[in-house]
């Protein structure tokens, strides 16, 4: 036992310390600094706000993303106690949480020279507050679920290797880790979950590891049933997924080819690793495994809004390195294996640039957050959120203009005489409920992204989307306000009265007996509006 325990302790210690350090770098300043994708950030602040107010994903609002994508920000909100601390704390907690299965999987299957660089790499992928493939100055927590998905899936793939020195609880821990990671993927973003399940099915063909795979699959089924017992929304989640799939599910051969060309470097390197391995093992299973690292990753990536980063390719490289080092040990010092002896250095070369890039971005966020760089969002509950540009090139006025319009919308809402009960925004995201501390809207979409989860063919009927809304904010342009207005304009004219109108927003109030008390108010703004002032009925 003792000779093995020391390296294991090294791996565990290093990864745990690193996860804690990355988590602290993220969460300690308690601020969110962002330079891009403000609108995406609002989805998840709103999501945290919804969960904190007692809503349940897919039951109280529609979303094609899994429920965990909302519970994770909510966890961050609960830990930090502020909207600005929510996303950093959430990702810090995820980084630490992922470190636990990581320690077991990597230390039982990879030697330290592989486990430590690969583990650090995966932790940084989760912790970095940028969209993968973007500049270190492009700070944002947007699409954090993609990074969680990549890291968890790439960790799961390492289970392909047989454990080096199986202990008594090996199967149990393997099953627990596999089940936890798969469930995490299934309930974060379904595309990753499907690949994880396919991988587990593939693992059934390994007779020596079949036991834990079966246990894991059993655990997954049991958990899914248990989750459904509490959640009672699995079917409506599937419906939302189908809708999103109909809008943007399929990627043509052109998209896939272009994505492949963008990742040519990574695929060439994986091919070098795979070539070295297959040269020695000549195993069909190994070939299939590398196929699983290469192929589904490409499909996931082309689904993501992400310029670069098929992280499962790196999992293939780490596993290949371990296979080469093991086969060398088994075969002794043979001359034909000389090139394969360089695999660890090649792996480090493969992992280091991205790790360094992510670490720098993490550092930039920590410094910017500590120095309180940038302009506060300006909504009462968004005090710890800031927008800045750092040194990003190009015209960034799009984001600043968007923030200005949000501020004006917030001002309009807070000037309303009656506190709205259910504010909805006919645009990408709703920053107002969370930003002003209003009750979250109910029954609508967590976000509306034209061409991604809604288009003119596939969409909810207006009664369903806007049925419960009492105040509707309609932007003049917004992120994608115009096609949405074309889609729902008729219903809005029928069911709502415009009560305020500025250059950036029109505020509508539901025409209903129960809120007629505010009709007097709307007369106050005698300025006739272009839409529906007094027609109909």
């Amino acid at each position, binding site marked *: 036992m003792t000779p093995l325990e020391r390296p294991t302790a090294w791996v565990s210690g290093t990864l745990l310390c690193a996860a804690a350090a990355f988590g602290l770098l993220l969460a300690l300043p308690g601020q969110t600094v962002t330079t891009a994708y403000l609108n995406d950030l609002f989805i998840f602040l709103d999501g945290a706000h919804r969960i904190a107010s007692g809503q349940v994903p897919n039951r109280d609002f529609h979303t094609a993303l899994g429920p965990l994508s909302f519970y994770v920000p909510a966890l961050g909100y609960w830990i930090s106690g502020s909207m600005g601390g929510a996303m950093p704390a959430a990702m810090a907690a995820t980084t630490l949480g992922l470190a636990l299965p990581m320690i077991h999987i990597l230390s039982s299957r990879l030697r330290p020279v592989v486990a430590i660089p690969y583990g650090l790499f995966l932790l940084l992928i989760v912790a970095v507050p940028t969209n993968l493939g973007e500049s270190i100055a492009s700070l944002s927590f947007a699409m954090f679920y993609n990074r969680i998905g990549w890291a968890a899936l790439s960790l799961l793939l390492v289970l392909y290797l047989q454990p080096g020195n199986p202990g008594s609880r090996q199967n149990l821990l393997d099953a627990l880790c596999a089940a936890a990671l798969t469930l995490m993927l299934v309930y974060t973003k379904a595309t990753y979950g499907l690949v994880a399940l396919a991988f587990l099915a593939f693992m059934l063909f390994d007779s020596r590891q079949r036991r834990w795979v079966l246990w894991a699959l059993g655990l997954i089924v049991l958990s899914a049933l248990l989750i459904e017992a509490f959640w009672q929304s699995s079917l409506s989640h599937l419906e939302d997924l189908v809708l999103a799939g109909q809008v943007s599910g399929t990627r043509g051969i052109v998209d896939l080819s272009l994505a492949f060309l963008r990742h040519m470097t990574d695929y*060439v390197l994986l091919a070098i690793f795979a070539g070295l391995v297959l040269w020695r093992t000549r195993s069909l299973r190994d070939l299939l495994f590398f196929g699983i690292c290469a192929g589904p990753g490409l499909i996931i990536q082309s689904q993501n809004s992400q310029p670069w980063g098929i992280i499962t390719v790196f999992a293939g490289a780490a596993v290949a390195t371990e296979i080469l080092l093991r086969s060398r040990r088994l075969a002794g010092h043979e001359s034909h294996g000389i090139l394969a002896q360089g695999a660890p250095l090649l792996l480090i070369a493969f992992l280091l640039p991205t790790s360094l890039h992510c670490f*720098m971005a993490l550092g930039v966020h920590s410094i910017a957050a500590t120095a309180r760089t940038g302009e506060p969002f300006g909504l009462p509950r968004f005090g710890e959120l800031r927008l800045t540009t750092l040194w990003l090139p190009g015209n960034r006025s799009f984001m600043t203009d968007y923030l200005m319009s949000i501020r004006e919308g917030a001002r309009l809402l807070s000037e309303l005489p009656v506190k709205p009960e259910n504010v909805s925004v006919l645009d990408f995201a709703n920053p107002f409920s969370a930003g002003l501390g209003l009750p979250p809207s109910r029954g609508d979409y967590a976000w509306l992204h034209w061409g991604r989860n809604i288009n003119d063919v596939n969409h909810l009927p207006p009664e369903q989307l806007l049925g419960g809304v009492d105040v509707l904010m309609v932007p003049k342009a917004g992120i994608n306000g115009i096609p949405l207005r074309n889609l729902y304009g008729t219903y809005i004219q029928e069911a709502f009265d415009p009560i305020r109108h500025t250059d950036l927003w029109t505020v509508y109030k539901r025409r209903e007996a129960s809120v007629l008390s505010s009709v007097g108010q709307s007369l106050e703004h005698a300025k006739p509006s272009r839409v529906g002032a007094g027609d109909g009925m």
Partner: protein
Amino acid sequence: MRLWTERPMKVGPILLAAAAFLALLLALPGQTVTTRYLNDLFVILDGAYRVAAGQVPNQDFHTPLGPFAYYLSAAGYALSGTLGGTMPTAMALMTLLLALPMAHVLGSRLHPFLAIPYGVFLLLIVAVPVNLGEGVTSLSFAKFYNRIGWAALGVLIVMYLRPLSTDRRQTLLDTACATALTLLMLYTKLSYGAVALAFLLFMLSDRQQRRWSANALGITILAALIIELIWQSSLAHLADLQLAFDVGGGLRGTWGQIVDHVLVNLTDYVLLGLIAGIALYRTRTVRDLLFYAFCAVAGFLIINQNFQAWGIIMLHGAAAVAAETILRSESRQAGAIDPGGWSTAAGAKLLFLAMVLPTAIHSLAALSLHTAAASIRAGNAVTLPNLEQVRVANLWTWNDYDTATAYQEVLRDGLDALSRLDPKPERILVLDTGNVFSMALNAPPAQGDTPWLQWDRTLGSANHIPAETLLADVQFVMEPKPADSPDAAKGPLPQLQAVYGPYIAVNFDAAEETQHWKLYRRAPLAPEAALNQDGRS
């Protein structure tokens, strides 16, 4: 498997054969297929056309580019006989020419496992019709001189390594290669030439290699004097370079842009750091450290001047030197294998392969795409006379294709207007980046103007050739009309008009106006006299 282990292998013939193969791929179809930067292509072809018409660079037209770039494209024009065959033939010729010093330098200094991939990598960089760092489908010959410069420099800096043999023949060939490469860079683009000269000076510090480096420096100076005797335009060239330098500056861009530019090349810097770090750990010499630092800094200074995001090929050259250094130190302590069963020498080979193989495959894919597209006559031929062998293809490059189509429409409109004129117009200047009309109409080019008016690159509001000089010999001015887009106001056209408009207004008469162009003809006499003449007729 001799390649893996033993040194004696014919590197030279393999590289020469590879160069011949790549040259055939490029030149055989006799067509230029491009998907973007059509105007840059016309700038290049106009240069070739001018030289073919008997003009001498810097004597008869202004250009910051070295004369070799023009004579090379003119040679392509002469050999192929068509403007469409010009660039493929020219670059095929260049690939063959570069293979000669490459075969000697790499064969005499690098292990075959390094020499062959590195040599093929450099040949592909010259042969591929894509601006470095761009996608496989971004076919264009724009900025071909940058790729020549990188490849030549990539060969030259390998001479930092001491050759395996030190006989008289070696010194003689070393001198010849170093001289030829340095002259090539000096007369293609001076930023490369300056770095090459600095490298030769640095090589004087190596006692064993001082002989060839001193010889090369001497012969280079002598050759420059002889070239000046024949060319008689060195000072004019330097003046044009000074102008371009004043427009752009030594270190272009804001600090943020510079940081981002370094970060785009982060992977290469990290990999060089890794491999050079290992090599330095072995040799512990200050000279090696200085060499790697020189490559890292000088490479960035060059790319900073280029229109190119990624691709500091000097880093790859430095990595080849580092890898060879590791291999040599390893063979000195023969048989030593690191504990743990992995070897640094094998790692260095793989790491170097990882640096060059992805780009080599990427370039080979792009080159093959060009060959295939040219062979099946993909896309549409440019609908201008003499340019039938230039084809614009849509290879999933929808935006670029639309831009090119619109641009061709504008050109067609201008050409129709020019062809209607009688007598046949000649000595035409286009107030735009490039001039396609002279070559399309077979019209004699003007003297003293420039084929390349790129705002903020070859001229700016503070630094430009005065109108009286630039337009002295010009008979026709084609002024494009601004496009309808709101960006047009910020584009280069208003700036060019501000600089040259007043002179044109005084000395030229409006000859015709079309949808896209205003045509001006030189007023026959002084403006006052011209008025009188108009009155008479």
